[in-house]
């Protein structure tokens, strides 16, 4: 509890004691002996002011500022009303009850805010740099690229970098949700926000703090609350009308029945009940808090959600479109077969490796790996990458075309010799030298562990359609799809085809249903933006994809998607429960109050009591094990 809350608590205790004394006195008939009738309100005014003076002050100040429909003002009017009808004990009691509720509410909000921010407490406070043989602590903001920093055992890694000395196990759970620590030694890349294990590491910094993993994640999570979900927007709009409507209702309730039936006191009392219930606080707090909690829970599993709207959309997701390479498969390509047509196998690898020398495409990397010798850049010139097709370049002065069937067809190179003779299924890269087929290389990728379970679980959760898109050839695509039980496959797509395919699927789904696209980011940015929900792989994905994506899976594990569906559904369910519960209770108390059945106590419960319960309910989004 903070200072402010403690002060309120003391006032509550004092007022409560006085309230009990007055309650006993009144019920014991002692107060009937008060000599002057005006003395009664004055006696009750003492505890009333002790507990409610700040409310009255705030109300007065807000009226001066032109803010009339404010909670404090309404509480003041309501309790003054009770004084006016000589229900002194009720005036004090209601104010007391209201303050207790407010205290609870502020305590609950504080607690939940704390637990959410603790979960996101991945921000490093300092970095150690060595100066004249001594370690000094500096602000991570001030460290420049290339500086060597020292990370001691147990410290949080302040900046992204490459280990240059030392060995340790690094706990990445704050970023990825993965509990098994990762080994870091000379040459390994490490991310800020992770916690160092038992060894001291010297790390060469590769990015400024502003661009580091941890700063980017914090930025995303903090901005998440500005992307509001539909439900949140609805509540904001609703809140704007709710208070005036209920207040006008209160005025009407005080005036109209009195004109026909008389008995102003009774109707004034009932109108006061309306005023107490007129704050939409329960909704305004609990709905965003539910989403905030859901986003927090997701981040605990290494899933970054960039806005409540995406979490909400995730609960309605029925179509999932996945990229093959890097998403369903490991993206670690290996040369499994080399077919020689006019050149020897070694020559084929040699030329292919040089032709791909500049490319960062995974296929290129695998060819270079199979070649296993260093690339001499001067042998290659005029390299041109043709997206979705391959490469055109000159190696040792010879014109080289390296790519898929489409490229060969386009260039009129006959490759019929190869078709049907290859033993392995995989991506076939054809190599043509001076317009003639030299050979072919087969590269295969392996399916990620857990990919099949991931798809199985998504189907269990009611995802209607699983689609796989790939630029790869049909045979490979179909083989992967069969193993993973994917419903629909589209192979041999160019990057732009992926967008149009996703658009087609977007049109095909019914009304509220949502489509998610999952990709590792290479060439994916346009599709990620186009889909209702774009999910990118964080650890090996491209920066552009993480920018374009709405949700990022930090550890590239697609099993997390079903976890996220669970989190989103639970969040939305809790938010809806809160809306129904809060509005339901308020409505019932309003009706009962108008009929004279509900009293002021019920009204205060419908206001702050409901708030507290809704907040506690919202916090459930944080706690559960969603696995």
């Amino acid at each position, binding site marked *: 509890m903070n200072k402010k809350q403690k002060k309120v608590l003391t006032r509550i205790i004092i007022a409560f004691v006085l309230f009990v004394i007055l309650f006993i006195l009144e019920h014991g008939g002692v107060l009937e002996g008060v000599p002057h009738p005006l003395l009664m309100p004055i006696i009750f005014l003492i505890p009333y002011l002790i507990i409610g003076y700040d409310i009255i002050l705030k109300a007065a100040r807000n009226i001066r500022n032109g*803010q009339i429909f404010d909670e404090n003002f309404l509480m003041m009017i309501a309790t003054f009303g009770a004084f006016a009808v000589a229900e002194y004990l009720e005036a004090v009691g209601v104010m007391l009850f209201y303050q207790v509720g407010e205290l609870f509410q502020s305590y609950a909000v504080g607690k939940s*805010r704390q637990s959410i921010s603790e979960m996101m407490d991945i921000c490093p406070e300092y970095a150690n740099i060595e100066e004249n043989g001594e370690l000094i602590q500096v602000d991570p903001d001030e460290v420049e690229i290339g500086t060597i920093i020292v990370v001691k055992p147990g410290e949080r890694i302040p900046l992204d970098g490459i280990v240059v000395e030392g060995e340790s196990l690094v706990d990445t759970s704050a970023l990825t949700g993965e509990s098994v620590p990762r080994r870091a030694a000379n040459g390994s890349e490490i991310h800020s926000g992770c916690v160092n294990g038992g060894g001291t590491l010297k790390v060469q910094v590769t990015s400024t703090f502003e661009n580091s993993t941890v700063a980017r994640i914090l930025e995303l999570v903090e901005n998440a*609350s500005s992307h509001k979900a539909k439900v949140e927007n609805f509540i904001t709009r609703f*809140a704007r009308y709710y208070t005036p409507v209920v207040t006008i209702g209160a005025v009407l309730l005080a005036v109209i029945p009195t004109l026909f039936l008389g008995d102003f006191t009774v109707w004034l009392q009932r109108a006061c009940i309306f005023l107490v219930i007129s704050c939409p606080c329960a909704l305004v707090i609990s709905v965003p808090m539910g989403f905030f909690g859901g986003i927090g829970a997701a981040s605990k599993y290494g899933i970054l959600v960039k806005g409540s709207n995406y979490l909400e959309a995730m609960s309605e997701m029925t179509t999932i479109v996945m990229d093959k390479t890097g998403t369903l498969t490991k993206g670690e390509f290996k040369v499994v077969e080399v077919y020689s047509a006019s050149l020897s196998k070694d020559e084929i690898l040699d030329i292919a490796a040089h032709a791909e020398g500049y490319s960062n495409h995974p296929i290129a990397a695998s060819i270079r790996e199979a070649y296993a010798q260093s690339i001499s850049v001067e042998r290659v010139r005029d390299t041109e990458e043709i997206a979705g097709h391959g490469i055109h370049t000159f190696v040792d002065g010879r014109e080289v075309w390296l790519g898929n069937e489409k490229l060969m067809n386009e260039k009129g190179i006959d490759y019929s010799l190869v078709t049907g003779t290859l033993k392995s299924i995989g991506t076939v890269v054809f190599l043509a030298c001076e317009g003639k087929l030299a050979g072919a290389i087969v590269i295969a990728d392996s399916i990620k562990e857990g990919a099949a379970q991931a798809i199985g679980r998504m189907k269990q959760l009611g995802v209607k359609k699983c689609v796989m898109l790939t630029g790869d050839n049909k045979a490979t695509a179909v083989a992967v799809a069969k193993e993973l039980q994917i419903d629909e496959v589209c192979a041999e797509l160019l990057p732009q085809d992926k967008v149009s395919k996703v658009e087609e699927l977007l049109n095909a789904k019914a009304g509220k249903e949502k489509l998610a696209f999952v990709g590792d980011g290479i060439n994916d940015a346009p599709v990620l933006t186009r889909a209702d929900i774009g999910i990118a792989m964080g650890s090996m994905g491209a920066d552009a994809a993480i920018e374009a994506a709405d949700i990022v899976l930090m550890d590239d594990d697609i099993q997390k998607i079903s976890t996220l569906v669970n989190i989103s559904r639970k969040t939305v369910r809790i938010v809806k429960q809160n809306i129904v519960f809060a509005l339901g209770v308020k409505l019932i108390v309003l009706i009962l109050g108008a009929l004279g059945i509900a009293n002021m106590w019920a009204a205060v419960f419908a206001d702050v009591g409901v708030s507290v319960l809704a907040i506690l309910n919202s916090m459930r989004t944080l706690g559960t094990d969603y696995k």
Partner: protein
Amino acid sequence: MKKKFKMEDLDCANCAAKMEDLIRKIDGVNEVSISFLAQKLTIDADDARFDEIMKEVQAACAKIDAECKVLL
């Protein structure tokens, strides 16, 4: 220019929404969002008048809840 500010003693969520409404009406403010949970104000406003705008923002917040402060 987009900037973030911490807020102190922002006690009621409804007030945060009202503050947003008021701030949005200030001349030169392109976008504003107040997170009651993070106790943070994110504002995107014209560079030229930024300091002036922030003064108006503070006044707007004080108008809704006198105890709440924007820490500049």
